[in-house]
């Protein structure tokens, strides 16, 4: 029954999408004033070559902190739900090592994923991407070895520490702006030369904190899902 209804909703959504596409509605008809203003002012004010980062961390830093808080709450809730089911039944989980292709692929992919994730995070103010995307890639990098070799798990405590320290670093960087009579999370340290790796003030620091926090959070979430997968 539920499938029927969900299929109906899906069909209705598809019909609406096609209707909008083919009726030629004037999308974005009132000109987007804010976007143009940001495009004009952001390079000089924030100094990030990636304007999206300038908006996400420079102009809307508190929104980003809200996103981090939401992610933290979700990860905490999932950890609460999944974390304590082990004590009830003492059934050794049937651990099967991954196949040869999975193990060999993991050995090749793990360093590549690490490099890509860190690159995306550290170049967040220069090229597309940033803390969230790179953090997800880092989380995937740390979950893949667990799928390949389920016996050696990375420790949850280390991840919790990384997550907590990264979150604290984000907030402390934001509060450092208060000491200079700026608004909370306002970019400090000047803009630097646009396009250089060390530029855009505190934005790279903030994105590094975001990336580590998101990566540790999602990795521990996925690990707690994999842990008792056998039973």
């Amino acid at each position, binding site marked *: 029954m539920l499938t029927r209804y969900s*299929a109906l909703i*899906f069909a209705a959504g598809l019909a609406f999408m096609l209707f909008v596409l083919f009726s030629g509605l004037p999308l974005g008809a009132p000109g987007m004033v804010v976007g143009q203003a940001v495009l004009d002012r952001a390079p000089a004010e924030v100094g990030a070559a*990636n304007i*999206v980062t300038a908006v996400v961390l420079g102009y809307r830093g508190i929104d980003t902190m809200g996103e981090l808080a939401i992610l933290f709450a979700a990860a905490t809730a999932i950890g609460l739900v999944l974390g304590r089911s082990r004590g009830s039944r003492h*059934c*050794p989980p*049937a651990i*099967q090592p991954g196949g040869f292709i999975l193990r060999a692929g993991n050995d090749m992919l793990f360093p590549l994923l690490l490099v890509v994730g860190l690159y*995306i995070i550290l170049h967040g103010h220069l090229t*597309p*991407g*940033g803390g*969230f*995307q790179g953090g*997800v*890639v880092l*989380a*995937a990098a740390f*979950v893949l070895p667990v799928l390949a070799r389920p016996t050696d798990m990375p420790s949850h405590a280390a991840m919790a520490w990384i997550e907590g320290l990264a979150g604290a670093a984000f907030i402390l960087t934001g509060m450092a702006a208060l000491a200079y009579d700026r608004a909370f999370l306002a970019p400090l340290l000047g803009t630097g030369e646009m396009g250089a790796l060390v530029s855009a003030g505190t934005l790279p620091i903030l994105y590094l904190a975001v990336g580590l926090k998101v990566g540790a959070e*999602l990795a521990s979430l*996925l690990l707690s*899902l*994999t842990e*008792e*997968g*056998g*039973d």
Partner: protein
Amino acid sequence: MSWADLIVLLMVVLVLATAFATLFLRNLLGAAVATTLVSLAVSVFYVILRAPDVALTEAAVGAGLSGLLLALAAKRLGLWHIEVQEAGLDERGDDPC
């Protein structure tokens, strides 16, 4: 028809096909893989629409993480049905212990 049009057409077909596959596949693991393919094709749209940031998010979260999440959740619920021929490699979740 330019190259971009051709790619868009291909991706529209891919998105619709994989979305319907998600709905109608009996195998839940296959359905999870199909949802990741939807996200992958959609991320190509974002690149064509010149939103590489969103495309990167869609590819990382939609195609990578959420597929893994769905697959692991299905595994936890004992809904994996992989037909494995070799003896002793039965990956179904309902192993008695």
